[in-house]
């Protein structure tokens, strides 16, 4: 248990499971009150909130469709009423259907764009006035390696995750004078519940994926959480508008090519487990 974020309130969108959940719990472990957000899965969100409360912080559950501006506004209003304001915003919602440009209809495209990108816009716009008033704020947008390498069959997700880093850059410049930093994280392959599906795509075997990462293992969601704690802390006032590629040493913007640097492409690099 740390106290780095004691007295702060963090809203983590998409925190009922996976990386969002891990981020919320790491922020809670450092003393931040957390707003746990999900679109519809109340029991999961409640369970995360209970875990956070067990760490000794306040936790509030808000279900909301982030592509609905009114729903986002009322979520922020509730959070503000409950905790006095939102100091830390994690945009972590990620809708990622598998469709190529030829499969995806314009409606499919818009649905993903509204959840992944418009949702981040609504959340940022709703929390920024309070941050400006308090002259302090931290916004962290979850981008994706797919935004920088591109990816087959995730046309909308890859585009949105690149766009969200644009939002990071623009807001970082505009709100720097108010003590607000805005950064992106690009997580590489993480050990999450959705990974079994993600692994069945048509490029990579598990082995291939691991071989791209010099670290030789998948990322643990709590590691993303620790990075978020750092970016949300007092120590990072000079870090803004940037992106951290947390990809196990895989180049942030290079995909398959990173397989080529292995002199022995079928060589031995057994997956390593991380010990916490």
């Amino acid at each position: 248990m740390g106290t780095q974020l004691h007295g702060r309130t963090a809203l983590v969108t998409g925190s009922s499971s996976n990386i969002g959940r891990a981020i919320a719990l790491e922020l809670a472990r450092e003393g931040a009150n957390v707003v746990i957000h999900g679109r519809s899965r109340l029991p999961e969100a409640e369970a995360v909130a209970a875990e956070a409360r067990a760490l000794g912080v306040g936790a509030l559950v808000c279900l909301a469709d982030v592509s609905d501006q009114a729903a986002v506004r009322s979520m922020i209003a509730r959070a503000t009423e409950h905790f006095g304001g939102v100091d830390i915003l994690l945009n972590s919602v990620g809708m990622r259907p598998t469709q190529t440009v030829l499969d995806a209809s314009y409606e499919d495209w818009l649905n993903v764009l509204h959840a992944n990108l418009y949702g981040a816009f609504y959340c940022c716009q709703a929390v920024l006035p309070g941050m400006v008033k308090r002259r302090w704020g931290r916004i962290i947008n979850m981008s994706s390696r797919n935004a920088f390498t591109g990816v087959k069959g995730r046309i909308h997700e890859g585009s949105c995750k690149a766009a969200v880093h644009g939002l990071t850059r623009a807001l970082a410049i505009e709100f720097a004078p108010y003590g607000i930093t805005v950064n992106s994280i690009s997580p590489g392959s993480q050990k999450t519940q959705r990974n079994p599906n993600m692994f069945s795509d048509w490029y990579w075997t598990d082995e291939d994926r691991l071989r791209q990462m010099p670290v030789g293992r998948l990322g643990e969601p709590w590691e993303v959480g620790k990075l978020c704690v750092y970016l949300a802390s007092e120590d990072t006032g000079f870090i803004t508008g940037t992106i951290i590629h947390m990809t196990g040493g895989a180049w942030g913007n290079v995909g398959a090519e990173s397989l080529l640097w292995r002199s022995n492409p079928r060589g031995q690099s057994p997956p390593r487990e991380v010990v916490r």
Partner: protein
Amino acid sequence: MTLARKTALVTGASGSLGRAIALELARQGADLVLHAFTHRDNAEAVADEARRAGSKALVVVADMRRPKEVEAMVQAGVKAFGGIDILVNNAAVSGHESFLTMSVEEWDRVLTVNLSGMFLCSKLAAEDMVRRHRQGRIINIASRDAMTGAEFMAHVVTSKMGVLGLTRCLAHDLGEYGITVNAVAPGAFDVPTLDKWYPTLTGERIAQLTPMKRLGLAGEIGKLCAFLASDDAAFITGQVIQINGGLEMTTS
């Protein structure tokens, strides 16, 4: 005449960059479908110039925010010339506003035209290219703002960075059909809208800051697009090509 017997659809052909791109493609032998929205007369003037260069040209008016109009535009091009071989996604809108007061309508206008419109044009053109087994070319015009960010332009910067992601994903999805997709990110160019883009800097000052000591010429973007559209560029895909005289290397 490296683009003879090819048809190019250039969106936003009424603007200075769109005009320069369209005319260079015409000079290389391509027939043109020229899209305009508010300035049809400008696009008609470009069409006349292209015809004098020996190309066929058709002007189509469409609102990028209306998918039906975009579909009709692509269909008109296919009907007139048999198909689309080259798509230059150049249409874009801009704005200058504080993020705190930005309305959803304004955010949506910029994102829809600059990003969703580009998705839809690319999808429709790609469907045509795949159907006709043509190894087509898609060229997306991004911007300096996508690389650096810009103040009071959150919607534009977001859309233009999205263009880079879209470019890479399209390149993945369409590579197996021999279709290449690249982005061109122009820096400061000697065009009438320069002041709008750089409200606090004069063209002279920007030229001073640029290693090449001058602004870009619209025709130079045309040449770059013509190269990317040619058969010679068949192995270049998913790339962002910056054309800015080295300006991004200038630091404080």
